[in-house]
């Protein structure tokens, strides 16, 4: 007779303790998922759709969450897949022409983290952020996703690997290409 583990007694419908109150989970993680989708797709409607779908799918699959990764990594993995699908979706591109929800590219550098910097430093940083933002749009989907997860969502390489389904080595390769491409666009000023 096979030994019975403690998990055998847990019914499948019982959520993992990390999930807990699903409403609270949405409130906590919505901003990050939405922000990532917005930075990746650069369209408010598309980002909102991705964020909503992400939490709907998470709610449906919450009984399958085993806690091997953090809830945040699990959610980001769902979001990464949805962002990939959305970027591929040609119908979205069609509707994007009808609804003006795409974002002005210059707004990304409106706020700078160092208010004490000199006006010259601020102007230079603003210019570099603009160049980097434009350069990021030209990256491949994988490079852009890895780049945003690393620098915007501040995730480490292992978290990115778990969220994207890549190996750590593959994450490093894509991140290197993205970083080097952006640095080359900025030129020898960086």
């Amino acid at each position, binding site marked *: 007779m096979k030994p019975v583990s403690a998990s055998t007694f847990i019914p499948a419908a019982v959520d993992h303790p990390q999930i807990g109150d699903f409403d609270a989970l949405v409130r906590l993680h919505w*901003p990050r998922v*939405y*922000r*990532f989708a*917005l*930075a990746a797709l650069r369209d*408010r*409607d598309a*980002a*909102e759709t991705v964020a909503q779908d992400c939490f709907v799918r998470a709610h449906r699959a919450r009984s399958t969450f085993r806690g091997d990764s953090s809830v945040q990594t699990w959610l980001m993995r769902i979001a990464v897949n949805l962002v990939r699908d959305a970027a591929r979706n040609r119908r979205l591109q069609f509707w994007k022409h*009808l*609804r*003006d*929800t795409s*974002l002005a590219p210059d*707004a*990304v*550098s*409106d*706020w*700078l*983290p*160092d208010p004490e910097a000199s006006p010259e430093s601020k102007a230079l*940083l603003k210019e*570099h*952020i603009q160049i*980097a*933002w434009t350069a990021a749009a030209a990256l491949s989907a994988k490079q852009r996703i890895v780049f*945003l997860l690393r*620098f*915007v969502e*501040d995730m480490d*390489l292992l978290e990115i690997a778990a969220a994207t389904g890549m190996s750590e080595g593959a*994450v*490093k390769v894509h*991140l*290197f290409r*993205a*970083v*080097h491409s952006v*640095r*080359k666009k*900025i030129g020898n000023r*960086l």
Partner: protein
Amino acid sequence: MSEHLSSEQISHWIAGERDTRQARHLRECAECSAELGRAESFFAALGASLRHWGDQHMGVNYARPPRVRLWIPIAAALSLAVVFTAIYDQRPPRHSDDALLDHIDAALSRSLPESIEPLTRLLSDRSETREP
């Protein structure tokens, strides 16, 4: 390792690909260390700006419904109006048949031709002014 780190090596370092020789060189070389510091500071600032930008748009997104380009519904409404007006103008007036029949009835019921009618009016005027 006496040579400076190449731009590619610095990008590899930022991407997490690091080795002990590069680490030693960075400790010893102020120039490479400064270049790496500038690049890392920049990517940190870029991330902070994008986080702030994303958070701001989230607020805007919930405060206001997405803008729809107004010219699309306006152009559609104007096109429909023009089409309906054109169709309506091409239809013959509904009362034209009735008017024609009335005109024919009037002509048939006249005892005298239309051109003589002013003379008959003149005669009747005279007869009305004549004293009994």
